[in-house]
């Protein structure tokens, strides 16, 4: 069975906030709210290192690490267990999601989430531009919302927006139950941690720290399972979908391959970069 998860290489993360911004845009997250945040480990304030500058020829002790944080899509999710109306639930593929039609705004799930990953729409959500952004409908006032691993994209065979838009290749998304998937290989190869492991929630987001991973050549915004051969352990020369080599002769910067069935790419067929 599919069990989606995310690996974030903290050594590769450059704190650019592209994940936070692309999440906000893709998911139509209201003004003042964030589903995806880049926290910092270091000084007392965000983006502030601990330690001091070099003095008298010394090497200094400045130290800071980025800690991207969103819903961890826990295996043993406390938020799911406390929801009295079953609005927060775990999908068959492991993604923890909220049925906004069921949510009554009791906020018990927010109190139970150790990762502070959920936000509450206190007022009528405010969007800029007013009609909203991205491919997800706005949520109403009085409900709780959070990261969905971009389930609307995943359902179409696309990686989450934060993964596709990470310029440092610090994020890898895939099936944790597939030993051959890239996420599984990263978890097996590198020392990974989960946030607040002692709470027993068993998050599906794993963090690499200490040794930088090689990253993954971004050949497409399709999920790895839909590509013929993507291996982070190769030199990248084989990491090209079969269709791309046959059909992509335009040289444009958009979608690199044809899409089968009903799947639709979220990048323009012609034009440079950008997800929306």
């Amino acid at each position, binding site marked *: 069975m599919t069990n989606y998860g995310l690996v974030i290489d903290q050594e590769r993360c450059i704190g650019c906030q592209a994940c936070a911004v692309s999440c906000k845009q893709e998911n139509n997250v209201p003004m003042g709210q964030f589903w995806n945040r880049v926290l910092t480990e270091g000084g007392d304030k965000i983006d502030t290192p601990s330690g001091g500058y070099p003095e008298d020829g010394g090497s200094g002790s400045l130290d800071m690490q980025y800690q991207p944080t969103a819903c961890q899509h826990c295996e043993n999710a406390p938020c799911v267990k406390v929801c009295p109306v079953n609005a927060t639930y775990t999908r068959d593929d492991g993604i923890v999601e909220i049925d906004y039609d069921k949510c009554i705004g009791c906020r018990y799930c927010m*109190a139970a989430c150790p990762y502070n990953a959920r936000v509450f729409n206190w007022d009528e959500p405010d969007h800029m531009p007013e009609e909203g952004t991205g491919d997800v409908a706005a949520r109403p006032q009085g409900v709780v919302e959070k990261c969905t691993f971009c389930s609307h994209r995943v359902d179409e065979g696309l990686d989450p927006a934060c993964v596709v838009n990470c310029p440092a290749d610090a994020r890898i998304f895939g099936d944790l139950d597939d030993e051959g998937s890239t996420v599984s290989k990263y978890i097996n190869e590198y020392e990974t941690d989960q946030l607040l492991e002692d709470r027993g929630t*068993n998050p599906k987001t794993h963090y690499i720290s200490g040794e930088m991973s090689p990253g993954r050549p971004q050949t497409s915004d399709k999920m790895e399972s839909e590509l013929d051969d993507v291996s982070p352990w190769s030199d990248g020369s084989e990491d090209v979908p079969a269709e791309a080599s046959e059909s992509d002769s335009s040289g444009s910067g958009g979608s690199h391959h044809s899409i089968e069935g009903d799947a639709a790419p979220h990048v323009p067929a012609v034009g440079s970069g950008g997800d929306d």
Partner: protein
Amino acid sequence: MNNPQEPRLTPIDEWEDEATAMLDGVDYDTDLGLRMARDAIRVSNGELSDAEFHEKYHEEVLAEFGEDERPTKPEGFDDD
């Protein structure tokens, strides 16, 4: 809550204050939410089973919300 300017996750010993603040002004029982949140973590930890958790709060949840649709309901559990 979920302040992007907050540099780190809330330390464990400060979690309860934060949870209380989240539930402040909610239309439902704040104390019940806090107790359930605390015990839901205990379920995750394995200190409490799903069934024990469900049974412990079933009556209160039913009284507060008029329904109890939590997924922790043990097989054969009598809702009444």
